[in-house]
């Protein structure tokens, strides 16, 4: 099929965009990692990486927290998904709302809230000490793993519960008819059917855990991971080593890419298309089983939403300077209104601008990828996987390296932050658009064509109304990611382009927890509003949040 002119333009534009915003920055990082301080080509950075005990430890630590967080997320997410899709749980909508809260809250406020509760001077710890119980602090590896598990379990929960509620009940009934016990049935029928979703959720959790910067930074206390090392090496006033930071970036990207490929390789055949003639039903459990199921989902849901609850409560506490007093007041919000209005404004304008770009360009590219399947578009689709495996910190370092000098100087501008968010979120929109388009059976448009509509009219009258809700919902999700983005902005910001997450991060480091809590609450309200709008357009479709 010949590409019409318009789509050729889109294709060229997409490649140009990827070239400037992705290949050049990434390539520069890659090259920089092979160049020493005086500009000579060298392998020294990689040799240093292998020789340095500290960096080796960071590498191992990254894997440890990544996989431990993944394990935790898989366990919590699967339990939650199974209980909520298969059993009648009182208040199940409330519980899944808790999961969504955990999902849309910025990662570092998780860390922050756990510090407030279980840190050195944490509320809960102090309380227990009065009874003579000396609880270990949350700092270090265990704290990071707990935060990761609770932060990332919604990925697993949402994907797996989607898959579970799509397992055709006839299949399970057939297995039952063949004499399989419930346990065998779960392992032999249900498990293989949800495995793709389970591993996709796990992959999301793993990649985010590896890339996460805020949590280990705030909770680590000497426990270093690759993301924190890269940041330190890049931004430290003393002993900074940008080329080493690029080396670590390259390793981080390779690591994520490796996991993506592994997951894809093992699941290359497992794609199931269920037809939903016979939907699964929810069983009413009795006695202790019922109690256990309720306890499990409420415990997971509440624990995951704790950061949200804590930051809202603490944002309302009376403070004197950075110190909390007893009683409640709106002082923290006052401080924001009078001192930090520009930060809020920055966040809003940056996010809105990047979302607009993402929606327009992402939808066009998505349509291109879905409809005009050629080698070229497949390559484009593949190239769009790259941002998915790029930790924010890497994008930050790459952009500041490339756009600092040369033909395009963007350092210190708002545009650089907008573009960094844009490129990271673009793949999701392309994916959702193209998969939404693929889900609309081609015969749908063909039917319109056979009834006398031109291909373009058929697209506009049939396909567009079917995908617009998805696009709007996708835009809201991009907005949530954009407004919560910390790690690349942290590298890219200057005083005048500071965003809410960056400010929260700095406030936590300064110990001004009240203002941090108030800013976090504002972020949460904005994210919550976006979720609400997304649900308005999609119905309550939680899976769409990923």
């Amino acid at each position: 099929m010949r590409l019409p002119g318009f789509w050729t333009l889109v294709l060229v534009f997409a490649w140009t965009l990827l070239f400037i915003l992705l290949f050049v920055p990434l390539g520069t990082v890659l090259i920089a990692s092979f160049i020493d301080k005086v500009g000579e080509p060298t392998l020294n950075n990689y040799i240093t990486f292998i020789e340095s005990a500290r960096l080796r430890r960071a590498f191992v630590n990254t894997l440890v927290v990544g996989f431990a967080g993944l394990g935790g997320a898989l366990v919590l997410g699967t339990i939650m998904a199974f209980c909520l899709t298969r059993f009648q749980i009182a208040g199940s909508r409330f519980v899944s709302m808790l999961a969504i809260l955990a999902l849309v809250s910025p990662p570092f406020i998780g860390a922050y809230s756990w510090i407030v509760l279980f840190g050195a001077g944490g509320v809960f710890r102090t309380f227990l000490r009065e009874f003579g119980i000396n609880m270990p602090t949350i700092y270090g590896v265990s704290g990071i793993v707990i935060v990761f598990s609770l932060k990332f379990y919604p990925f697993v929960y949402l994907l797996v519960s989607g898959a579970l509620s799509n397992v055709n009940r006839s299949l399970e009934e057939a297995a039952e008819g063949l004499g399989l016990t419930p346990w065998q049935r779960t392992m032999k029928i249900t498990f293989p059917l949800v495995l793709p979703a389970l591993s996709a959720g796990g992959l999301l959790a793993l990649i985010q855990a590896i890339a996460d910067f805020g949590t280990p930074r705030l909770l680590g206390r000497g426990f270093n991971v690759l993301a924190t090392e890269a940041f330190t090496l890049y931004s430290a006033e003393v002993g900074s080593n940008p080329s080493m930071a690029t080396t670590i970036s390259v390793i981080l990207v390779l690591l994520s890419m490796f996991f993506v490929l592994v997951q894809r390789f093992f699941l290359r055949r497992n794609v199931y298309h269920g037809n939903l003639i016979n939907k699964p039903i929810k069983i009413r459990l009795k006695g202790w089983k019922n109690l256990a199921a309720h306890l499990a989902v409420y415990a997971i849901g509440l624990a995951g939403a704790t950061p949200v609850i804590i930051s809202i409560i603490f944002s309302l506490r009376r403070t004197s300077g950075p110190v909390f007093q007893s009683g409640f007041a709106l002082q923290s919000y006052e401080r924001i209104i009078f001192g930090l209005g520009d930060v809020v404004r920055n966040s809003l304008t940056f996010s809105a601008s990047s979302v607009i770009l993402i929606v327009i360009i992402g939808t066009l590219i998505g349509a291109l990828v879905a409809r005009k399947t050629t080698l070229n578009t497949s390559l484009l689709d593949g190239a769009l996987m790259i941002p998915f495996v790029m930790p924010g910190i890497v994008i930050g370092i790459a952009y500041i390296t490339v756009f600092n000098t040369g033909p395009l100087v963007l350092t210190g501008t708002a545009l650089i932050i907008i573009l960094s968010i844009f490129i990271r979120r673009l793949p999701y929109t392309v994916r959702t658009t193209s998969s939404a388009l693929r889900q609309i059976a081609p015969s749908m448009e063909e039917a319109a064509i056979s009834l006398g509509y031109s291909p373009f009219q058929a697209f506009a009258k049939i396909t567009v109304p079917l995908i617009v809700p998805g696009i709007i919902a996708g835009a809201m999700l991009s907005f949530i990611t954009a407004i919560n983005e910390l790690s690349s902005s942290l590298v890219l910001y200057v005083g005048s382009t500071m965003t809410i997450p960056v400010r929260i991060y700095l406030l936590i480091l300064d110990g001004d927890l009240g203002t941090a809590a108030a800013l976090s609450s504002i972020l949460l309200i904005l994210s919550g509003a976006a979720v609400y709008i997304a649900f308005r357009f999609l119905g309550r479709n939680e899976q769409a949040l990923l």
Partner: protein
Amino acid sequence: MAYLTVRNATKLFGESVYALRDVSISVESGEFFTLLGPSGCGKTTLLRSIAGFHDLTSGDISVNGSDLGRIPPHKRDIGMVFQDYAVFPHLSVFDNVAFGLKPRKVPAHEIKKRVPEALESVHLTALAKRLPAAMSGGQQQRIGLARAMVINPQLLLMDEPLSNLDAKLRIELREEIRDIQRKVGIATIYVTHDQEEALAISDRICVMSEGHVEQIGTPEEIYGDPQTRFVANFVGTINQLKRCPKLEEVLGMLGLSEVDASAKNASWSVRPEALVLSELAQPASGGAVAEFSGTVQKYTYLGREAHLFLNTAFGEIVVHVANPARARKHDQGETVSVRLNRQALFGFDADGARITTGKAPREGTI
């Protein structure tokens, strides 16, 4: 001249999947033409090529003498009922059916008249206001049917439009389709893999297998005079006669020995209803008749007819007895004798092609 002609259509998917091989058909105007064949034989592919959704690898298609090749699908004015329904989920049933009338600039008051009529004919009037998303497969199928018929296209293509309906509704709707089609006089190509449906409804049937045409003919020709072993097997039931001395004898009695000898590896078969129990046979009306015997294995009474499963020298054979009430019930183990005449025997050569036996096959009965 034929209304629609498809000449030497070949469609290749990928490197080696021949969905169509050198298919040629022609459909007269007002004709009800059925494509019949097993799953995967290329029926959908042929329909989609006619509608313009597949480009043929080679061959051409013309309607009314003009080549369709360069006409884009939306200008072809060909109504299509899709195998997967393709009902628009965001439009109500009424709007789905009205959808094709809008680009045809049908005035609003006429839409208000024609759509309910179309819905009426597929028994969907009650659902007009509803969205089709949660409707059953059969209901969606009928929406698709109404939507394609309401536009009065110059050619109507239906891809198994009744496959998801229960038996009763299927028969009702197929008569409905046939009546409407006759009334409006649209040339129609109808796809099915249900042989009974094909026989009941078609002016002509095209039997396909593995991408090629096996035989084109009226239902009577397809059933009564199958040109290939495939057609004989696929349409109706057939008794394959095992080669044995008794077969030579029967062929001899019917004067077919020479024909048999001249075709290499010929095989012979006979329809169950062309076999007659000797006790019920009318006195032979001229023509050669052969007789053989068998023991009853099973007797199945079906009301209108009975099936008698016999063990014979040719292997297991079924005899259909019409009006069994007038005959005797046959017990297991009983020996019966069976007659057949020359016309009843279908001979096929090693390639499965019909062997001409020298006489018009449908002439005379026992």
